[in-house]
């Protein structure tokens, strides 16, 4: 399980880093959102994942509390996801505004047009 998570994180970061280095704004934004997902997966994996139960305590359940997955990282991840959602939306609005101004979202073009 931990191997799978590691590979996933590595793949996400690699793809994100590649995308961030592109010239198009949209690809940069996508790259950033991939990288933040990698960080989120990392937080989840910092709690115990393994074979644990989902951390929801129900009435009359006789599950040993020790066999639950640690809920705190998941709460943190939820917050982090909300934040990255908001930032991505903001970046998209910015990119759209740049696009409306100069009809391109290519960073090199932006610099050239600015002179």
């Amino acid at each position, binding site marked *: 399980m931990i191997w799978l998570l590691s590979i996933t994180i590595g793949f996400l970061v690699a793809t994100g880093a590649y995308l961030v280095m592109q010239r198009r704004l949209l690809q940069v934004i996508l790259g950033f959102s991939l990288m933040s997902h990698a960080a989120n997966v990392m*937080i989840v994996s*910092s709690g115990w994942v393994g074979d644990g139960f989902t951390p929801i305590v129900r009435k009359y359940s006789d599950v040993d509390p020790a066999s639950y997955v640690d809920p705190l990282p998941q709460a943190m991840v939820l*917050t982090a996801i909300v934040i990255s959602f908001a*930032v991505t939306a903001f970046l998209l609005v910015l990119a759209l505004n740049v696009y409306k101004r100069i009809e391109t979202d290519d960073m090199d073009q932006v610099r050239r047009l600015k002179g």
Partner: protein
Amino acid sequence: MNAMLPVPVILPLFTGIIVFLFRRSQRWQERISLFSLAVNLAVALSLLNATAGGEMFFHRMGLWPFPYGIILAADRLTGTMLTLAAAIVGACVVFAEGYLSKNERREVFHPLIHFQLMGIQGAFLTGDLFNLFVFFEVMLMSTYALLSFYYNLDQLEMSFKYTCLNLIASTLFLVGVSFVYAQAGTVNMADLSVKIRELGPNPLMLLTAFVFLFVFAMKAALFPMHLWLPSAHSISPTHLGAILAGVLVKVGIYAIIRCATLIFPQPFESLQPVLTVMALTTIVWGALGTLPQQSLKRILAYSTINQLGYIAFGISLLSPLGMTAAVFYIVSHALLKSSMLLGAGLTQKLTGTVNLDEMGGMMQKAPFASTFLLVGFMSLSGIPPLNGFFSKFFLLQAGFTQGAYLVTGLVVLMSLVSLYYNFTTYQRMAWGTGGGEAGTAPVSMYASVGFLASFAVIFGLGVPWVYEWSQLVAAQITRPELYIAAMRNAL
């Protein structure tokens, strides 16, 4: 007092919402906003007063048991920083009233500035690492929006750059949190301090501390990550530049102090050379960067980088003496640099430009504005009766006491460079020739600049008291066991 701790977070939040709902009526928006800022300042002052005796305050949100839940904490450092933030943001809003002409996107300005204040004050107050991240993000998100205030192309591009850099930092912050959580199983600062001490030195913890140093250095614009600062200062509206230089970068510094003293004291001892090199490079880069600049705001921005290097140098000494100097420097620099940026905005409003060669002869045309700037420049370059001299003096004293002669000598050399650039800048601006007629500016702008600039003189005359306060703060923060014990007692 404990129940009052959430107020600096809740009050700006509510004000932001109410001001947003009042966006049709600018007059009411202003009134509510200023009233709330005044109350906020009063709360911050009372917190400062309450923490003066060395007592610490804690507030558990939702009354969750100790290591869980959201904890707000206040000690002397928090009180100091809160007061600074409240005063500077208040002055900047007063300034913005005059700076922005009517109907100029104010309906977004007031709510955003209050959300930003909420983030800033929350970051100062919070007692756990993850909520530090959350409040950072609240603060940064409103900053992103404020940076692209007029939506022109320069601002859009700069805002994009700033957002991307900070996104990298935020991602790394999360990575750091996951490292910490995987090793210590908690994110509460006091709990972390104990757990990390128990774990002892290990390479992974060193790496974690380095990640956090990198993240906060990005916010504090230390050397490898300082590139966003000059354009952010010069392209954004002036009042935002003042908040950036006065408060936002100080949030990064504050977080570094907390890491170095409370959370990772041992890893930071190993990281001390890194921090020192970062600080020195920042000092050199900032000082040399000012030389080719034409714009007053860009000069001030590079000067900010320079000064941040001094503060980081003080922290990198990792001793009570160095911390005292750093705290003194933070206080004086925050007030000073925000007053100078506001002064630059004032001259911009008067002359319509920030290019030094186009101003020329400001001393005749706008005596008040250039007097305020004169005070600032004199203080920055370290003329004795003003606070800039003392902040550098204490820093050098701390450096020499600890035997870091070579490094401190370099710092002395660089302060000579800063002496040079400050004088040439002021000379070009105030006594040069050329430039058009000066316009007029509202009294509120003069008042806010004067209010902040007066602290340069007041702190210069009242050095003993300020220094004593800095010593008290440093004495408290360099002994993390006090913090831990207080939190355990309170909760």
